[in-house]
């Protein structure tokens, strides 16, 4: 069976901006349901959590809902265990306390609002470059190629400290490594080149640390990280920061273009953008689900008995469309008072880069609408192709004119 013929897992199915009808029908049966995500050989039923309160309950209770447990019942995480695969070392979302606490404590100060604001001029410059390219290309242009997918990679390179000359190769290998549309062999080859580059970057920073993210980590906590952990943390940043941001930028632009009144609100009042970003994060919910949880003990959730060892998948789009969170959840309203949505997760694994993501989205949407105030779709809305085979929802292409 070719890759494209494989069924799309239930929890990632959508209907344009909305969660798919089958997900809604499932949640009508209750906030927690036993399902098979992709019926076929080898697929095992698990628990799909669609209620807002229940999702918060699971994500907020790391003592009973583990992300690291699938690597072994009593395995200490990190560089010292025998179970965790090499390429999983440093991926923070797969760690439980106390190892999670150890790593997260060292990383959190690198992602403060203040620290991220220092990146603001660089991000603004990168966004300007992308818009210049798009303007030069002239209409019609693909907003995904020239804007949504063009911004996140260089921003992450800026953060991690990948030199400008290396970025093209680095991002190509990274896309090939993380990309889901390729065969395993091709991914593995690209992956080894990608991780070799990161290992060399880590080694250089160990020897001669600069004032960027890796250099600061090495200077402040050098002996407390293994090289594999540092390398893994870089992979994690790429994993978290590429598809999620490109998805938000492309899909967010489409949502605004289909709602000209709302587009006008944010275009004409830059002060309105912070709220708009929060509402787009909630309404679009591009990450389908955070890392699956494993129940550590028997626990009752949403009226269902979850047995120790069983797996739970939390639906972000369903939780963020729950009337328990917000009135009229299916209506996009960029002027809403922000609500505690779970687009960045919840609890100890709450997105480390949330402040960066918010700033990046605000800068990019604002600059796009300022540069092209008359931006419009250059294709019928029903012809827009959505990106379904990815860890984050988005659009494949978005032809626009101005």
């Amino acid at each position, binding site marked *: 069976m070719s890759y494209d013929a494989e069924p799309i897992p239930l929890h990632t199915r959508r209907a344009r901006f909305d969660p798919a009808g089958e997900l809604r029908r499932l949640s009508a049966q209750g906030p927690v349901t036993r399902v098979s995500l992709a019926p076929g050989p080898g697929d095992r039923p698990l628990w799909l959590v669609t209620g*807002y*309160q229940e999702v*918060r*309950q699971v994500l*907020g*209770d*790391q*003592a*009973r809902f583990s992300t690291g447990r699938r690597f072994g019942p009593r395995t200490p995480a990190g560089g010292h265990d025998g179970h965790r695969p090499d390429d999983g070392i440093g991926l923070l979302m797969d760690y439980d*306390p106390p190892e*999670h*606490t150890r790593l*997260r*404590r060292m990383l*959190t*100060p*690198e*992602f*403060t*609002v*203040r620290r*991220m604001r220092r990146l603001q001029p660089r991000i603004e410059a990168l966004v300007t470059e992308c818009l210049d390219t798009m303007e030069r290309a002239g209409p019609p242009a693909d907003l995904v190629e020239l804007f949504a997918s063009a911004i996140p990679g260089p921003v992450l390179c800026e953060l991690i400290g990948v030199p400008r000359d290396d970025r093209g190769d680095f991002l190509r290998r990274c896309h090939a490594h993380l990309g889901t549309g390729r065969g395993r062999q091709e991914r593995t080859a690209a992956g080894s080149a990608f991780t070799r580059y990161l290992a060399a970057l880590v080694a250089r920073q160990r020897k001669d640390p600069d004032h960027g993210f890796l250099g600061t980590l090495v200077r402040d906590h050098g002996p407390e990280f293994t090289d594999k952990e540092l390398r893994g943390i870089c992979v994690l940043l790429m994993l978290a920061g590429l598809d999620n941001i490109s998805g938000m930028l492309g899909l967010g632009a489409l949502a605004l273009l289909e709602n000209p009144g709302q587009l006008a609100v944010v275009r004409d009042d830059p002060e309105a953008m912070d709220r708009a970003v929060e509402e787009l994060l909630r309404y679009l919910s591009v990450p389908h689900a955070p890392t699956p949880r494993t129940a550590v003990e028997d626990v009752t959730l949403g009226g269902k008995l979850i047995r120790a060892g069983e797996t739970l998948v939390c639906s972000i789009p369903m939780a963020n469309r729950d009337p*328990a*969170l917000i009135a009229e959840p299916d209506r996009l309203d960029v002027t809403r*008072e*922000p*609500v*505690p949505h779970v687009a*960045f*997760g*919840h*609890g*100890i694994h*709450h*997105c*480390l880069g*949330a*402040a960066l993501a*918010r700033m990046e989205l605000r800068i990019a949407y604002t600059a796009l609408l300022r540069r092209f105030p008359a931006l419009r779709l250059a294709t019928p809305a029903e012809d827009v192709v959505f990106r379904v085979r990815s860890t984050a929802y988005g659009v494949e292409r978005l032809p626009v004119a101005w």
Partner: protein
Amino acid sequence: MEVRVDRDRCAGSGLCVSYAPEVFDQSEDDGKVLLKEPLPGTGAAGAVRAMAARCPTGAITVHGHGHAHGHGHGEPAAPREPSEAV
């Protein structure tokens, strides 16, 4: 209104610092919340209650004036998850 923060719970999202900088700060050392103003005036009350509700780890609580913990403007209260200091 009295604001309390639980630094053990804080995950350093920085939301509170962005929206209510007169009340909250974020430590340069560990990235966690710092309380600048434990007794904010009525002008900041709405923003602070909203932050208590939106905090991703329930690290901010609001006390006094007959309100329960963490209520925003008719928004769901941040439920107190079983505690695990992280």
